[in-house]
């Protein structure tokens, strides 16, 4: 693969860009691989990448029923932060955030990580206390955050109305090195790097069955035939229950639609990411100028990539209270993704009842920000059978009653 750089672009500009090669190969499946990952979203591709990079395991296939990065990786609001309360969460999200810092250089692909800062508004006394607690926890977790005053909030985000009649802004939990990235580029950059290492990304290949013998996985049936493997990773987000069902076990997961919307693009007016959890809305401005807005999930199970309209009304209504200027913008487009929500709202990165089979799911509404850390830890788990990053995220925690509950601080959406 040619290196990407300004010089490469200049060189190609002189020859009508004829020298650019495929970003990832489109190979025929082999009969067998050391590792098969089901799901070529961000988490699956990152897992494959770190299997190769950190453990030298490159005889890997990443199987995707649609197009890579086409699930929640390509339909989220791209917020990156690690200001979590609980130690296991802060560890994996901060690992991810710190990997994002250098991801463009690692992958030689500009994922446009923009550490513009993320603030989570405190709009009740209860939220203030919750975020203060998180600030204390973060100080011991190596996550740089602080609780800031309403005046500082206004300074960082002048379009905000901090004196709203219903929920005035009483402060915010601020992570200056949080931010956003270009979601598609994360998937594409990982895919390119995986392909470079000789891994196979098999798009438009649907897994239809999982084969096992003596309690261990032996391979998968796909729409392109049977493929054997020694180890299997399931990384399919909203469809986790469907794939687990093929392997014969059940998950503490429910799949629900989560919606987002964007406005038409306008000139830069907001240089931070703002989350307002009391009113369930969050907003940032993309590099194109669109205001990117996320809201809450539907309360019922569904696999439609669209949600119920009234959630958008609620989200926009709440945002207009905090950002009055939003009122004069127009909604360009709204869409939905299927998020996999666990019993304690925290992810599962775990061994499964089926031998040599691992599952990475349950990221719910917060998966994008975790992609590099999730891939890093899950690759270690798959390669070595354990990882400090994933140790607390096992499936066994639900039986033991050992939950990782992030909603405790202030009903925080991910």
């Amino acid at each position, binding site marked *: 693969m040619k290196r990407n750089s300004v010089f490469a*672009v200049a060189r190609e500009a002189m020859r009508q860009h004829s020298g650019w090669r495929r970003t990832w190969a489109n190979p025929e499946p082999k009969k067998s691989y050391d590792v098969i990952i089901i799901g070529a979203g961000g988490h699956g591709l990152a897992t494959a990448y770190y299997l190769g990079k950190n453990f030298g395991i490159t005889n890997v296939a990443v199987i995707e029923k649609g197009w890579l990065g086409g699930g929640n990786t390509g339909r989220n609001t791209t917020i990156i932060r690690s200001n979590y309360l609980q130690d296991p969460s802060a560890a994996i999200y901060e690992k991810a955030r710190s990997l994002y810092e250098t991801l463009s250089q690692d992958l030689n692909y*500009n994922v446009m990580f*923009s550490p513009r800062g993320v603030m989570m508004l405190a709009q*009740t006394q209860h939220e203030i206390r919750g975020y203060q607690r998180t600030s*204390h926890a973060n100080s011991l977790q190596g996550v740089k955050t602080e609780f800031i005053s309403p005046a500082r909030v206004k300074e960082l985000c002048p379009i905000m109305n901090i004196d709203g009649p219903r929920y005035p802004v009483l402060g915010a939990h601020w992570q200056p090195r949080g931010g956003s990235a270009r979601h598609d580029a994360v998937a594409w950059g990982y895919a390119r790097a995986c392909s470079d290492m000789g891994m196979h990304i098999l798009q438009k290949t649907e897994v239809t069955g999982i084969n096992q013998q003596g309690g261990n996985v032996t391979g998968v049936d796909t729409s392109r035939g049977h493929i054997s493997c020694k180890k299997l990773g399931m990384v399919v987000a909203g469809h986790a229950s469907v794939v687990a069902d093929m392997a014969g076990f059940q998950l503490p997961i429910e799949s629900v639609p989560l919606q987002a919307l964007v406005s038409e693009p*306008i000139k*830069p007016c907001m240089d931070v990411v703002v989350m307002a959890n009391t009113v369930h809305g969050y907003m940032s401005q993309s590099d194109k100028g669109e205001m990117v807005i996320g809201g809450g999930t539907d309360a019922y199970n569904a696999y439609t990539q669209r949600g119920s309209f009234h959630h958008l009304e609620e989200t926009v209504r709440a945002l207009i209270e905090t950002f009055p200027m939003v009122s*004069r913008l127009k909604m360009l487009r709204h869409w939905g993704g299927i998020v996999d929500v666990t019993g304690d709202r925290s992810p599962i990165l775990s061994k499964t009842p089926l031998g040599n089979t691992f599952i990475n799911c349950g990221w719910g509404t917060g998966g994008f920000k975790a992609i590099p850390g999730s891939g890093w830890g899950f690759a270690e788990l798959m390669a070595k059978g354990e990882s400090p990053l994933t140790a607390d995220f096992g499936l066994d925690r639900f039986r033991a009653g050992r939950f990782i509950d992030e909603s405790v601080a202030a009903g925080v959406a991910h």
Partner: protein
Amino acid sequence: MSTRLANHGRLINRSKAIKFTFNGKVMTGFEGDSLAASLLANDQMLMGRSFKYHRPRGVVASGGEEPNALMNLGAEGHFEPNARATTTETFGGLTATSQNHFPSLEFDVGAINSKLARFLPAGFYYKMFIHPRSFWKHVYEPIIRKSAGLGKAPKARDSDKYEHYYHFCEVMIVGGGIAGLQAAKSAAATGVRVLLVEQTAHWGGRAPVDGATIDGISAEDWVHETVVALSACENVVIRHRTQGAGVYDHGYALAYERIADHTPGDGRPRHRLWRVRCKQIITATGAIERPLSFAGNDIPGVMLASAVRDYVVNYAVSPGDRTVVVTNNDDAYRTALRLKKAGLDVPVILDARAEGGGVLMAEAIAVGIRVELGRGIAKVIGSKRVTGVQICAQAGEGAVLEEIGCDVVAMSGGWSPVVHLWSHCGGKLFWDVDQAMFRPDPDKPPLGIDGAGFVRVAGLANGHLRSASCMVDAAIQGTAAAYNATGKVKKIKTAEAEDAEEVPLSPVWLMPQGASYKLRSKAWLDFQNDVKVSDVQLAAQEGFESVEHAKRYTTLGMATDQGKLSNINGLAVLSKALNADIPDVGTTTFRPPYTPISMASLAGEARGELFQPIRKTAMHEWHDDHGADWEPVGGWRRPYAYLQSGETTDQAVWREVINTREKLGLLDASTLGKIVVKGPDAGKFLDMMYTNMMSNLKLGRCRYGLMCSENGFLSDDGVVARIDDQTWLCHTTSGGADRIHAHMEEWLQTEWWDWQVWVVNITEELAQVAVVGPNSRKVLEKLGGMQVSADALPFMAWADGEIGGITCRAYRISFSGELSYEIAVPASRGLEFWEMLVEAGAEFGVMPYGTECLHIMRAEKGFIMIGDETDGTVIPQDLGLGWAISKKKEDFLGKRAQQRPFMDNPNRWQLVGLETLDGSVLEDGSYAIAKGQNANGQTNTEGRVTSTYHSPTLGKGIAMGLVHNGPDRMGEVLSFTKIGAPPVKAKIVSPVFYDPEGEKPNA
């Protein structure tokens, strides 16, 4: 130049001239104009700049598909960015400015990007700006953001109002063209309720412009007659300026009515969002003409052929004096004929088809227009305005045969049905090879509640290009929709339409077909986002083979027009590059809304004070009048403290605590939930709900109870009173009443439905006042009535009676550690009772107190607070509340969960009191630092602060916290985090700081 013609103009009122401004320049238009028409009439073809290269942009279309003519409209509280000039009605005083340029529309320094275009192909930013690392955030990104973004950010608060409207009908029809009108007629004939909406201010769609004959009269007249007839039908609602914006599951649809965009400030709502529920939806949304992809097709003056026709016929505006028509179909000949009829020059029609067209071509030749077959445009000449075209053979590589001067190019690449609404909810499409278009696949409709299709498509949107078949189709769909919705059938005569015969088009996805890279890199697909044929080809070359990948890589179709003009052309280019058939490559997903709708309309009336109405207790206004510093609690507001003049909040809280402890305090406790549980099985039921035994509570007595979730976690607490043999009254936390009521109902209805228990939430029926402090009994005795002495009403007892002439129920309970009564009175008398207490209490030093005082007093007593000591992960055993967990009961909610290994563990973090060695106040949420780090390099912890206050009573900092094995570690000193400072030492002590023997409340 573009100009106003002397005669005609279907939609304008020449007697009403209108003044408006564009970029500060005063211009004149006519009533009925679109802003784009007004601008063209003033020879203003240049209307904006493109997104990426800042190329000059003129208007290209005449409707909602317009990608270029976007304006900043209005000012201050009426400002709107990115308004389409084509869908903006011109009104007197309108002010518009063009977007995305600096310093001016005519001269834009950003246009340097266009010169550098070869260095900025699709996806260039993924490949560049990688080093040095910090430059992306601080250098590259700000530049990219600033040059993108189009319209200005609004600054002022919205001055307009908006509303929501619910509408119910059997059949909703979107699109007021002849197909929509016919479908409405056919559906309405059965008597079903019909809603017909049209996004523009005019009925009839294209037919009146294109000149069909319907039932022997002109389309214009037929449309008029039909609208009049439909308006007279009681079962029909018709609305123009109302867009069918989105289709959702189970027959839900959004319609977006632009009531007052063209009459700002007239007092009416600006927009109205219709939330429609219907059984069947017919989308008669017509079709959108496709541009042709030739070099220079983005230069101002290159327009859709249909748009050129619209401006001439509808507004009597000539986009230019000399128009070259370039086409692959017969329809564009209509444009040439209309221009000719208007006395304008059409130097040539370039028909890419080698055989040319049918009767319309013959007519064109007959009126003396030169027609060249098998020809196309190699390149358009001009920069800010077309000055001519270079003609080439369509089959060639672009060798120039001839150059012709012109100031407008009218292009037509065929028509794409508007299938958006069909697709919003999952309707599938098929590729019609003959007409080169995606059409709705009637076998794969969006599925409704019953699993059957609930959306139909009629007319042009359904692929019926000719008026006659369009009408037949519309009638069929209208009749079928009514039948599907209600089972009613009534057939009426279908209008018969006639228009000119047409021969099929020949798909042209690139002009000329063998165009060189140089030409392809100047052939635009997406005019707003600057995506060219060469960009899509590059995407394919780089492996972005999925249409979604190609779209995202190039940004094709992601502009504010959402690819209405560019998607099919881009898809065709991608297919060709991949050597695949168009339907095999597929389409991107159509997402609502059809065109952008205002955010404000989504919010509707719920803004400001109406955003989330505040729940108010009977005494709310009194608090407000007496200095309440409000705190949101659930849906309520509660006074945090009552500020006296000159006081800070902290001072007020301090005063309230001291006064209540020493004299008399009043708390409005009305927000506490009150739920009556009654019935033969009520005791058994409450024994399941609470961890304590409630069935054995004695009549007249109260008991503090805990509720856990089935997951074992403490979820609510409160005092339960036994009212009679079969009745208990359960207090919940403030704001918890609805949740706990629902929780009880859920268990009763879904698990123990054979138990005879009734549950009623009476929270709002009662006002409740906590009368607290050593003087509390005195004030109640002064008011007179029921006995409140220690003997008559002992601690943890309750009694019904009357105080000061008001019927009440008095509870002898205390959350403050003082002698205390909670008195419940009818809500209607709450204020009266409160004021009575204030007046009578004056001699006893009465003062109201707020939630912070409440919190401090309970913390001084070591009482837990749900939400402070609990956070959804805490079980009662952690809080030293084991005494409230019945050992006798076989079962209660949460019992099984608490037997799980992680919970049934003596090594959990448990409640203790904390006192700093220096008397300072620990920080909220502070953690106790333990030795070492965990495997992820995080500092270990061994406890945390759950509540922390400066105690006015004790004059020092006190705190409660959860500490690893805390109760066994009394006297140990721990280090607690302090933000931005060294850790603070605090000693583990009993959590009960005040009156540890509990004598005061028993007084």
